[in-house]
Structures are given as structure tokens and as C-alpha cells.
């Protein structure tokens, strides 16, 4: 009996269509439900939710304290708990510590907060190397972490997922939570980037009387 792995890659789309038509025919999945799931992950669920959490932590010290003590509870306060993000630990970047998230076994990732992971997060290269040579991984992302800074790597699993609370960049004093959330990138919340200071023209215009 043959199965997916014994077939050439050209047959994959056909195999998927066959499985879909059978599951639909048997009433196991509904076409509309499949479209809703795809649309949700393509358009609605994504890193903007994580960015809201980060911006709130940057502007509300009490929330930040709760977030670091009990990520799951603090994220629930914002109504952002969701599938694949039921149990969350938030780790804080500081001038002395840089955190990096990986899933060595597969691709565990806080879907409800960051959306689906990028290909690099799921790649064998990232999964294998993040835990033994994180600095070289970060260099590939253009991030040089000083030898004085400790790099901590967190290996996710199906039950527990992580989020990096990046450092708030310079030049953001006086910015609102909403303005701050725009600066926060997906990679900064995984630990493969830092949050950049706002573009210089913006700082200049804000500094102008």
C-alpha cells in the first residue's frame, strides 16, 4: 500500500485535493470551515497581537510585572489567549541578557500571539543550531551580541510556549502604546532581532517645537 512519502513531489497537490474531497464528502471537514481557518491565519492572526503585549508592558510597569511573573494570566487580561498559546512564559531582554526562542523538535510557537511561524523558524538549520551556537544564528540575522551579554535559549514544546519581551529602544520616550506597538517586529519577539529606534526624521519632527 502506497502513501504520501512514496510519491513524487509533483503528486502532492493532487494528493491533497484527493484527501480534501474525501474528507468533505464524508462530512469530516466543511469547505467553508477550511476557508475560514486559512483566512484567519493569512489575515487576522499575526504578530500585531504580540506587539500589543510588548507595547503595553513598555508603558505599564504593573502589567509588565504581571506579564513576567505569569505570562498566561497577563496575556489573558488582554483577551489574547488562543489556540497554541494556552501556556505562555515571557522572557525579558535586558542590557545583560538576550533571549532566543526555538523549537528543536518541530515548530511549537505561540500562534495566537505571533501567527504561524516563518519557514526559517521551522528549518533544520535553525532548530539544530540555535541551542548549540546561538550567536552564529543571530549573526545570520545581522545581530551581533556582545560577549558580555548572556544569550539564553528557550526550547518550546507543545504545552509551553515563549515570547521575548524586547528592550524598548531609545528615542521612544513620550510615544503612546499604539505608536510603540508599530515598532515591534515578529523577529524581535522571537529574539532574532532587536526593536529599532524610530526613523530619525520622525524623532526630528517630534523634537521640533
Amino acid at each position, binding site marked *: 500500500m502506497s502513501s504520501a512519502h512514496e510519491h513524487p513531489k509533483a503528486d502532492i497537490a493532487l494528493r491533497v485535493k484527493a484527501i480534501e474531497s474525501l474528507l468533505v464528502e464524508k462530512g469530516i471537514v466543511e469547505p467553508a*470551515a477550511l476557508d475560514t481557518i486559512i483566512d484567519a491565519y493569512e489575515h487576522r492572526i499575526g504578530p500585531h497581537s504580540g506587539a500589543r503585549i510588548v507595547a503595553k508592558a513598555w508603558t505599564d510597569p504593573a502589567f509588565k510585572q504581571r506579564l513576567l511573573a505569569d505570562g498566561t494570566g497577563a496575556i489573558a487580561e488582554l483577551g489574547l489567549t488562543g489556540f497554541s498559546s494556552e501556556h505562555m512564559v515571557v522572557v525579558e531582554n535586558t542590557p545583560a541578557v538576550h533571549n532566543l526562542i526555538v523549537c*528543536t523538535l518541530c515548530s511549537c510557537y505561540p500562534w495566537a500571539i505571533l501567527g504561524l511561524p516563518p*519557514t526559517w523558524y521551522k528549518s*533544520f538549520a535553525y532548530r539544530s543550531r540555535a541551542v548549540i551556537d546561538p550567536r552564529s544564528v543571530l549573526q545570520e540575522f545581522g545581530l551581533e551580541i556582545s560577549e558580555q551579554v548572556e544569550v539564553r535559549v528557550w*526550547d518550546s514544546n507543545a504545552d509551553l510556549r515563549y515570547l521575548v519581551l524586547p528592550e524598548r529602544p531609545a528615542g521612544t520616550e513620550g510615544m503612546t502604546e499604539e505608536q510603540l506597538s508599530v515598532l515591534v517586529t515578529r523577529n524581535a519577539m522571537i529574539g532574532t532581532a532587536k526593536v529599532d529606534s524610530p526613523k530619525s526624521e520622525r524623532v526630528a519632527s517630534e523634537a521640533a517645537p
Partner: protein
Amino acid sequence: MNGPHDMGGMHNMGPIPIEADEPVFHSEWEAKVFAMSFATFGNYFPVDETRHASERMPPAQYLSASYYERWLYALELLITEHQLVTQAEIEERMAQLAQDR
């Protein structure tokens, strides 16, 4: 389980494939595999069983498959093991669809 999925610390996996402005899915079949898996796990089998199914992929295939090819493998294994669909039905439907193309 001790298999190729337990990848932490392995050497020689090459540079990290960083893609700028990456789409959520790279093709329609990837999106469909994701959605069918999402719609069935929880209802017919738990998420943990799905990951375990992809870990049962033979090592040489695991290492040459793409991410959603591994998901497809897991989906097919689980729907047939749980007797939602038979392997023969899948092959038959594929032959039919190929003819209709």
C-alpha cells in the same frame, strides 16, 4: 522517541533560510493541509498525536521533506489509522482527479 526530529545540537544543517516578506503559505496545497489538520485535530485526534505522527516518518524521508510535506504525511497517517478514510480511497480519488485534469 529518538529520531531525526530531535534535532537540537546537530551539526551541518547549513545556513538558515531567511526569506523576506514571506507569505503565510507558499502554495494552495500547504494552506489546505494546514486547514484540514487544524479542522481534524481536536475533533478526531489531539495535537500531540499529530506531532507524534510526523515523528514516525522514516528518517531519510523526514530529512528530505518540507515542513508541510511532513504535515501531510501526519494527516494521511492519522486519517487512515483512525479509519476516517482508507488508503485505497485516497489512491482511487487521486486517479480519478488525475483523469479529470
